[in-house]
Each structure stands twice: as structure tokens, then as C-alpha cells.
């Protein structure tokens, strides 16, 4: 078969000395980038572009850059779990349960399951890339604005499930997230919203500053204030290998996360953040003990970490088969290819089979390298927790500040980050959970834009959402979820009533 021949040829390229070396270097650097808060893969790739241009073969340079990209997805979990600071955007939800696990002395298990889940998902993603990339990319193209709208509506519904114990507080956070996401230039009308004339706000708030401020910096403030400032998490580190119960709870979460991530990654504009948020909400729905979520449920780490890794592998599909970059990092890889005279797109497989299959083969290798690299590192990372907070705290603040600065080579994001740190501190003192805020911040603009684009397409007719096959199906699914929830709620109330009457 063509695919096997191609893949075999790809491995012969990926296994050459230089390419192996750069695959390893990329994975290693990516892990470091993922671990350092705020310094995302996009910033790193843009810094390395000059290095890449001087490489002799485009295949080597893409193998290197791709390694950084998926390596960062691996490493992103580390600081989320240990310090409650998302290493990159897609690791925000990992903060919720991962950090709770660390607090309970199970940091080792959380890091290990994140690494293993990432490996499984990354491999699932690459297998998908190998066998079904072209037809899947064609299918993804049929996702127009109405389909997007329906999909994101389901996402927002899941976000409501994310809210913790108090639905009212969850709802307030949801609306705050929507409000914050509105800041910036409205792409449809071109008008400024809530920018107060500040040019830096025209592009809206950066997701990373928001997430690192609300989660990370607020945690530093809380620790400063709390009694146990000397022990940021806990002195006991616990066993590293997950227990049998951990496995039982994570197995399906990893698989579900892999598939969610894969499909959201393929749809241009979906991406790793949406994938990890959706996976978390879904795991909470599927869990036998949903009340454990937010208290250190291992499935809440395994699912999202798998999802964001599968999404990062899958986001190469629109690039390699359609020539459409789905996110900032991929856009830079796209640019690197173009400057070297290679046009990503449907003809890539025919014009540059060596490059296409070489990169895919390197991704199989890269995932193995990352697993081999990361499992032993778990022990090293957890040692971080033994560093006294007096040293660790300022270091965290320094790294996050550098990360924020690197977003636009500008101080503005640093100020925003500090402001969100203070806001996050106040919110958490008042027992508000920033989770739903983050989800709404990501989803609201997608929902709003796709709704307005759909209505422009249909000249104002709402029928567009139900008459198109894909969006009609998704809308039916949405209605079914709402109906099921309502039924459950009514029955619960009845039960309570009956119980009351019985008393």
C-alpha cells in the first residue's frame, strides 16, 4: 500500500542522524518551553526561525519545529500540576485537579498519568494523521459558520457543568468571562468594544495573561498570605507510578480525550484549548464520583492532557493537506516552509513526499522520545516542590512576567497579568471558581462570530441552523442534552419532594 511505503520511506528519513538529533532537541526544548510558564511554543518558534532558515533541508527544520510544538503540549502539564500555573493555554484545566492531587501528595501520579496520556493521545493523533488525513480534512471543510455555532453551543453547555458547587457563582463567572472576551475590536462591525481608547486592548486580552494571572499569580498571593508559606504544596511527594485505581479511572478518560482532541484539532480554529476544556467537562459527566472533580480526580488530569496532545498532532492535518494553519504556532511552521520554498497544501504529498512522510515518521519517534524523556523527569520535577517558597515564589513571578512580555514584546501584557492576579486573588477569597470564566472567555467570541456570520450568510433567517445536515444534527444533539438534563432535574426534585412528604 502507498501509505505503508510512504511511511517506511519517512522512517528512513526520520531515522537519519541529523533528523533524529533535531527531533530529540525539538522535543527536549518543547518540554522546557511547556514547563516554563507563559513562554509558549509560538514565541519560541518565532525566536528560532532564523536558526531554522539556515538548515540545509526543510524536512529537518519542520521536524525540529514540530517537536517543539508537541513537546510543549507534554511539558505544559508540569507547572499546572505542581504550581497551579498553566505552562501553556491548553493546560488550564489541568490546574484544577492536577494541583489538588499535588496538594494531597500525589504530584508524581498526576505527572505520570499526564505523560502517559499524552503519549497515547499523541500516537493516536499521528496514526490518524497517517491514515485518514485527506478525507478528514475534506470533511472539516464542511464546517461553516452554522456548524461551528452548533458545536460551540454544545461546548458552552458543557461549560455550565464545569461550574463548581454553586450554580449561581458559576453563572456569574460565566458572564464575567463573556464580558472579558468582548473587549477588543469586533471583527464583524469593526467597532471597538470596551477598549477605553487603549490601543493595546484592540486585540482583546491575551488568553495566557488571563489564565496565568487568575490561576497562577493568585495562587502565589494566597500562599503568601496563608500560614504554610514555607510549604507551597506539600513536603510528601508520594509514589510516582499510578495505582490500579488510577489506571481504572484514567483508561477511558485517556481514550475519550484522544478522540475529542483529534476531532477538534482537525477542524480549523478548534484547537487544543477547546479540546481540553471539552474533555474535562465530559469526564465530569462520565465520572462515577463527579463530586471528586475539583478535589483531585485523576480523570480530570488524564482526559484534558490527552485531548490537548491529540489536538496538537491533529492540527497538522489542515496544514499538511489543505495548507490552512489552524493556530499561531502552526502558522509559523507554515511560514518557515514557505520561506524555504515548500508550499504546504494538497500537493505537498506529491511534490515533497520525503518531507511529508519524514515529518509524520518523526512524530511517532518524537512521542516515544517524550515518554522516555518525561517519565524519569517526573521525579526531578517533583523535587521542585522541596524548594522553599521564598525562592520559588519570586522565581515563579519572574518566569511568568517574562512569558507575558514575550507575547507581544511589550509591557502591556505584564500589567494585565498582574491585574488579573489581583482579581483572581479577590475572586478566590470570595470562593468563586475561575474555571467557567476561562471557558466562556474562549467560547463566547467563537459563538458570537459564528452566529452573526451564519445570519449574514442566510440574510437573517434562523432556518440555516436546522436545514444544513451537520448543523441540524448538532442542534438536535444540543436539544437532547438539554432535555436529558431537564428530565434529570425534574426527577431529582420529585424525589426530594417525595422524601419530604414521607418525613
Amino acid at each position, binding site marked *: 500500500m502507498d501509505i505503508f511505503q510512504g511511511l517506511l520511506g519517512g522512517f528512513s528519513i526520520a531515522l537519519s542522524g541529523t533528523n533524529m538529533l533535531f527531533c530529540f532537541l525539538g522535543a527536549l526544548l518543547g518540554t522546557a518551553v511547556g514547563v516554563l510558564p507563559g513562554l509558549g511554543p509560538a514565541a519560541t*518558534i*518565532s525566536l528560532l*526561525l*532564523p536558526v531554522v*532558515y539556515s538548515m540545509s533541508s526543510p524536512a529537518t527544520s519542520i521536524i525540529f519545529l514540530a517537536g517543539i510544538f508537541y513537546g510543549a503540549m507534554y511539558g505544559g502539564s508540569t507547572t499546572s500540576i505542581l504550581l497551579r500555573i498553566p505552562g501553556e493555554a491548553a493546560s488550564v484545566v489541568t490546574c484544577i485537579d492536577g494541583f489538588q492531587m499535588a496538594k494531597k501528595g500525589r504530584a508524581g501520579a498526576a505527572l505520570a498519568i499526564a505523560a502517559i496520556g499524552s503519549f497515547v493521545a499523541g500516537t493516536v493523533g499521528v496514526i490518524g494523521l497517517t491514515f485518514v488525513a485527506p478525507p478528514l480534512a475534506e470533511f472539516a*471543510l464542511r*464546517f*461553516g*459558520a452554522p456548524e461551528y455555532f452548533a458545536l460551540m453551543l454544545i461546548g458552552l453547555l458543557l461549560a455550565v457543568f464545569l461550574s463548581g458547587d454553586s450554580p449561581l457563582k458559576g453563572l456569574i463567572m460565566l458572564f464575567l468571562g463573556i464580558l472579558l472576551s468582548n473587549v477588543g*475590536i*469586533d*471583527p*464583524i*462591525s*469593526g*467597532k471597538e468594544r470596551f477598549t477605553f481608547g487603549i*490601543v*493595546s486592548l*484592540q*486585540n482583546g486580552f491575551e488568553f495566557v495573561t488571563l489564565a496565568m494571572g487568575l490561576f497562577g499569580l493568585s495562587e*502565589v498571593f494566597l500562599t*503568601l498570605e496563608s500560614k504554610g*508559606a514555607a510549604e507551597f504544596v506539600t513536603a510528601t511527594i508520594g509514589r510516582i507510578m499510578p495505582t490500579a485505581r488510577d489506571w481504572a479511572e484514567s483508561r477511558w478518560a485517556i481514550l475519550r480525550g484522544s478522540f475529542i482532541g483529534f476531532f477538534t484539532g482537525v477542524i*480549523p*480554529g478548534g484547537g487544543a484549548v477547546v479540546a481540553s476544556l471539552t474533555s474535562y467537562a465530559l469526564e465530569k459527566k462520565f465520572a462515577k464520583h463527579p463530586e471528586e472533580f475539583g478535589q483531585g480526580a485523576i480523570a480530570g488530569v488524564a482526559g484534558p492532557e490527552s485531548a490537548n496532545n491529540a489536538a496538537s498532532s491533529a492540527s497538522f492535518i*489542515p496544514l499538511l493537506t*489543505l*495548507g*490552512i*494553519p*489552524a493556530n*499561531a504556532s502552526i*502558522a*509559523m511552521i507554515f*511560514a518557515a516552509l*514557505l*520561506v524555504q*520554498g515548500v*508550499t*504546504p*497544501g*494538497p*500537493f505537498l504529498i506529491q511534490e515533497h513526499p520525503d518531507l511529508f512522510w519524514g515529518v509524520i515518521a518523526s512524530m511517532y519517534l518524537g512521542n516515544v522520545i517524550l515518554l522516555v524523556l518525561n517519565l524519569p523527569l517526573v521525579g526531578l520535577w517533583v523535587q521542585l516542590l522541596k524548594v522553599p*517558597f*521564598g525562592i520559588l*515564589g*519570586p522565581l515563579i*513571578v*519572574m518566569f511568568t*512576567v517574562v512569558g507575558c512580555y514575550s507575547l*507581544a*514584546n*511589550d*509591557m*502591556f501584557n*505584564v500589567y494585565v497579568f498582574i491585574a488579573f492576579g489581583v482579581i483572581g486573588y479577590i475572586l478566590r477569597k470570595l470562593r468563586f471558581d475561575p474555571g467557567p470564566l476561562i471557558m466562556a472567555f474562549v467560547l463566547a467570541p467563537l459563538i458570537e*462570530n459564528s452566529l452573526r*456570520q451564519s445570519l*449574514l*450568510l442566510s440574510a437573517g433567517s434562523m432556518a440555516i441552523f436546522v436545514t444544513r445536515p451537520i448543523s441540524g444534527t448538532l442542534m438536535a444533539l444540543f436539544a437532547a442534552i438539554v432535555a436529558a438534563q431537564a428530565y434529570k432535574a425534574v426527577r431529582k426534585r420529585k424525589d426530594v419532594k417525595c422524601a419530604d412528604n414521607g418525613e
Partner: protein
Amino acid sequence: MFGKGKGKILLSVALVMVMVAALAGCGAKAPDKAKQGAAFKPDKPVTMVVPMAAGGSTDMLARAVEKVWSKYCPQPLQIVNKPGGGGIEGSTFVARAKPDGYTLLMGVGSGHDLVMPHIQKVEYDPFKDLTFISRLSIHSVVVLVPENSPHKSMKDVIEWAKKENKPVTASVSVKAGAVDMVMRGIGKSAGIEVTPIPHAGGSQSITTLVGGQTIMGGGHPAEVIGQLKANRVRPIGIATPDRDPSLPNVPTLKEQGINFYTWGSVKGVGAPKGTSKEIVDYYADVLKKISEDPDFKKAMGDMLQPIQYMGPEEFAKFMRQASDDYAKLVKELGLDKK
């Protein structure tokens, strides 16, 4: 209130924050004075600010320049991306930098210089706050239809719209952006109704078009090169007054009877106002040599970015003309009304 240990920690966290604030202050000041002399030659690395995100067409142009830069200039070129405000932030940064010849701006003449000032207040005036060095390229707008579209030319689209009496949906990157203006202009000049559908950026709008969700769309050739090469989209018109050298077979709108053109997105290099003539001439010369370099030519050809070099005086005249044209256009299309 605080224990002894905690006070120390608080102090060190505060110290980091103070250091950060101090650094922020330093950033505004440029390093030492430029040597004033007859012949300028840089003696430390030169910074080129790209006011757009890395990976976009302006960034790619800067990277292509960087690739051959060291052949013609003894000092390395550092590219710094300062995205934000649709290009305004990076440009304002350069406008306020020291005119010592070590801070250059790539992409002078993009929408934020030539179009935005006619629509809203902009923090700097490109004609007062910048010195124009050289024009390198123009990224024209090419009008596209999806591969399975029945329309083969602009005329087909217009006839269809008139016969069916339906609005023509058009996928555009953002409201009042380069593609949006072209779509509105076509509607106005041809007397048909065009409904532009804005997106949050070029790549999303192209995805919509390739998926056949709209009747037409557009982009800069450099942005849609993958789709063009693979015949996923069909180019049916160029919106600049003359044909785009990177797509020589595509007729202009004018050739097809639509009396309308824009200057697309002009890509020049600039420096802060007050940069001495020696410095301007030095870089104009370096850039001229780069524009004639075979490796640069090949890279630009591969990216569908035409090389259209202009020296300082010519470029300044051209900018004036283009800005006046855009002022008229913005008024005609009603984009200036808030």
C-alpha cells in the same frame, strides 16, 4: 501581621515586581547616540520591527530579507514582532524610537498607515512621524471563487447576481480590511449587492471560501498560495491598477469593466522621523541590493510576493498618492461613517 519569614518572601516578590517596573521604564530609552558622519555604517545589530504576528505575509517578507541581509550589511538583522492594534502598536513604537539607524520598521504602507487614519484616529501620523526608506513589494488583493464554483470571471458573478437578484456573499478577513474594501468596491462599481462576511483574520476567511460557504472571497496572493497551487480556489480578478507580477495571468478588475482599484497592502521599510539622509541612503542601498539578490528573488517568487522596489523619494511620493486614493475610497464606500 506578617511572620518574620513571610515578610522576607513578600519583600522578594515585591522586589521582582519593582525590577520589572524598572525594566519597563528602560525599554523606552534607546541606546547610545548615533555617530554623525558622512558615511553611515551600523556598528551593532539592527532591529527590524514587524508590527504583525510572526508567520503572516509581512513577517515572511521580513524573514526573506533577513535571510540575505548579511551579504550586504556587516551587522546582523534582528526581527522583533510587535503585533497589536492591527499594526498600530509596532509602528507607534518605531515612530517614537531614536532616529539613530538601529530601529527599522517593516510593512510601511499596510492598512494601518494608508487606510485606518481615514477611518479612525491613529496614535501616529505615518507622514509626520516616519521616514520612508524603500518600497519592497505590494500585496495586492486577488478575488477568488471556490474550485467548484460555476463562475469563471468577474462578469459571471455580476451576471448571476443581476439575474438571480440575490446578494453575493463574500468571505473577508476583517471589516474595513483590504479584502472587505475590494468586495464593497466591486458591489458599488458593478451595481450589485455584495454581503461581506467578516472573520477574525485571513486564514479563517480562506477556510470559509475553500469550503464553498460563500460565493466569492479574496486575499493577498501570498496568503492563498497553497490553495492557488492546488486549484482549490480560482483567481478571477486583481484589484490593483495593474496586474500583479506574481499572478501575471489574472486580469485586473479594470480589464473586466469594473472601474475600481485599491493599492492592496503596500510593504515598505521605514525609520523614525528625523533619521539622517546618510542613514536613509545607506539602507535604501542595502535594500536595493537585496531586491536584486537572486536568492531573495527566488524566496519571494516561491511566496508569490512580487518585488516592486522604490527608492526613498519615489516611495514618499507614492505613499502620498496611495493615501489620497484611499481617503477618497473610504468616503465613497461609506466606511468613514461611525
